[in-house]
């Protein structure tokens, strides 16, 4: 006992010292160690780059490094599992993109969104419908008319069933009242190549992946299905401007495991929001083609729910609901 006393005294003194130090810091006691940021996609893609920008900016706000760790595989569900199963102490967060909504129905091994706690919204990126410059479709209306005249004949390039571009075109079909022939490619870039080669007549992907081709006059963006025009292609009218009420897009949110203490959740939300609201961050993200529309816990959660309600019937109709069937 006597022997251990000085040691515990020392610890007590040290703890008091640290506590004083911690009080001096504006952020309080949390985070007291680096924050691990799980990125469920491989390095180099849009998700990875955007979240690295966020992590860099957020590190300054938290006063602790936010370390991005790539955990790709199984359509993002491996990384998402790591987020969901991490200790709910606020030191592990990660990116949840809109693909996670479909994944929970496609894959029985994927986590449900209800296993996760939304923290902040990075951006809500509108989708677009794109065609070749020499295509007969000059506007969205001409496309819709042609698709209605000959249902199922216009070939649209998209990704695999359940992927982002697949859900975009499926939602367009439903909202515009048309039917097309959906041809699957291994991602956005092969779909763009297929459109350039003339194998498909339209593609349904996000604006940043085609903006350069639009500017160069090789491809024509028929319309953007967002609330406002896209800054990378300001000459392209929205669907709404062309008389079609369709809001379709993808988003990236930051989330953690369920059950984080309320004060830590609040601190995380504030840190990420402050980081994303900085002018310098906005400019850096914009220069890389990212549309940043920051939001907090409430906005993120709302987005998850609306997307879920919008998507579920489409997945059900396409025979893609393999798990978590709603009654």
């Amino acid at each position, binding site marked *: 006992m006597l022997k251990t006393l000085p040691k515990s005294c020392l610890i007590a003194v040290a703890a008091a010292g640290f506590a004083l130090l911690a009080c001096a810091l504006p952020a309080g006691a949390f985070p007291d160690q680096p924050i691990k940021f799980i990125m469920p996609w491989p*390095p*180099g893609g849009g998700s*990875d780059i955007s979240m690295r920008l966020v992590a860099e900016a957020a590190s300054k706000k938290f006063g602790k490094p936010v370390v991005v760790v790539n955990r790709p595989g199984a359509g993002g569900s491996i990384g998402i599992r790591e987020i969901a199963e991490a200790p709910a102490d606020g030191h592990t967060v990660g990116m949840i993109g809109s693909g996670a909504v479909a994944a929970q129905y*496609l894959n029985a*091994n994927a986590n449900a969104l209800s296993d996760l706690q939304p923290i902040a919204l990075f951006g809500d990126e509108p989708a677009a419908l794109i065609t070749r410059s020499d295509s007969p479709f000059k506007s969205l209306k001409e496309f819709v008319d042609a698709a209605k005249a000959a249902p199922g004949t216009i070939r649209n390039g998209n990704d*695999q069933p*359940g992927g982002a571009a697949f859900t975009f075109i499926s939602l367009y079909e439903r909202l515009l009242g048309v039917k097309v022939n959906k041809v699957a490619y291994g991602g956005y870039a092969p779909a763009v190549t*297929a459109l350039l*080669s003339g194998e498909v007549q339209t593609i349904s992907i996000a604006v940043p992946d085609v903006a350069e081709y639009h500017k160069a006059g090789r491809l024509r963006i028929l319309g953007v299905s967002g609330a406002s025009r896209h800054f990378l292609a300001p000459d392209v009218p929205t669907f709404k401007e062309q008389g079609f009420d369709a809001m379709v897009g993808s988003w990236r949110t930051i989330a953690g495991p369920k059950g984080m203490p309320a004060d830590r959740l609040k601190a995380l939300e504030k840190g990420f929001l402050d980081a994303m609201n900085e002018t310098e961050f906005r400019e850096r993200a914009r220069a890389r083609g990212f549309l940043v529309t920051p939001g907090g816990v409430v906005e993120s959660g709302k987005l998850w729910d609306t997307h879920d309600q919008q998507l579920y019937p489409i997945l059900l109709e396409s025979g893609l609901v393999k798990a978590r069937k709603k009654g």
Partner: protein
Amino acid sequence: MGIFESLVLGLSVACTPSNLMLCFAGCLLGTAIGVLPGIGPLATMAMLLPVTFHLSPAGALIMLAGVYYGAQYGGSTTAILLKLPGEASSVVTCLDGHEMALQGNAGVALAVAALSSLIAGCLTTVLIALAAPSLAEVALAFQSADYVAVLILGLVAAIVLSQGSLLKAIAAILVGVLLGIIGTDVSTGEHRLTFGLAPLVDGVGFVPVAMGLFGVAEIVSNLASTAGHGTQPVAVKRLWPSRAELKALLFPSLRGTVVGAAFGLLPGGGPTIGAFSAYSLEKKLSATPARFGRGALEGVAAPEAANNAAAQASFIPMLSLGIPPSALMALMIGAMMIHGIAPGPNFIVKQPALFWGLIASMLIGNLMLVLLNLPLIRIWVLLLRVPYRYLYPSILVLCCIGTYSISNSAADVLIMAVFGFVGWFMKKIEIEPAPVLMGLVLGPMLEENFRRALAVSGGDPIIFLQRPISAGLLAVSAALLVAAALPWIRRKRETVFTDPL
């Protein structure tokens, strides 16, 4: 801007001290990971990507490109010395390269690999400089039906290149294609042939199968055939190729460059199909095809030139159109995005310094690689002197680490072990492993494009004959297959094969 001014501009970018350093660092790292089995350029470039946040855009691209083509140089080293293909594209190099090493010509084989890679690297760089935009448009002429024809041609090439029984070669390819079917169906998301095992959901990877069939099986059958004593390759006779050998490597390298560059332009498997096709072409053209598989110099020169040419040609669609033909090029696009540079059809016009800087660095990098690799040969061949009781366990450990590191999966190591046994058994019943790997690599691409072509045509198979590219390539494949299957050719093949040289 003329080509001369452009090159001067490029050299002024590539020759700044920091960019030269990055180019060298990339090439060195590429060689290292090429030599190490399992760890490929994709994983390495992915790990380096966060570092490039802090580099200049030109420096980042120069370094990453160096890793990629550097790996093509390094990949042949273990293929030749230990029959361990470091990359998919160096599988073919194993066939004759390792035979050469067993005959005491390891140094010559390594030098031939390096020199033919240099020839291919320089020529392809010139090709990019002169004709990138128009070549990229050629890539756009290919649609799914045409890819199907290209892939079938690749598979037929794999049949033609194999020794011995045609039926066994076809069987091996089909086994490879079947292995490729394991995993998640692209179109429906259904799991196929996974037997409910989670590690099989993402399919069977190339690296575990290749390491099992080649590296592990080689060791097992070596020990089995020598009652556990292991074989020691004959002492190294010569390090450097003779003048006659240098002459003999020139034309195969040139032909390999052309074949490789053509396949490199097309998405998917560029270096791999290129290397296999170049090898088959050399075998077809050769007056003494029986030498192939028994240490033919052309059998090293042509595929090595082809895989390097293809690796560099895959930059063409990426730089001039912003289209990545492979996952590696998609990473390069990511590196540009990090710096806010949008790749696309106007990249060359908008970013001349970056484009020409990268081109110039490729020339410099290829020279660096040869200067780096030729002196290293002296050291590499020492590996052959290591007693097998030290060498074999080290190879096995390296194989396990390499396989595990790809996706931190112990299941992959088990798959490698299983295929080590399969490879030993195949050797016993005289079926060659290379066509299995070719089937594994090309099968999934074939399926994807086949189904897509039918989706485009509304289910009508006539699409394969309507498109000129597809019809032409299918005709070539059919002709090759018929030629190989004709009984008299077959008899001739076998007699030549059994004749002592």
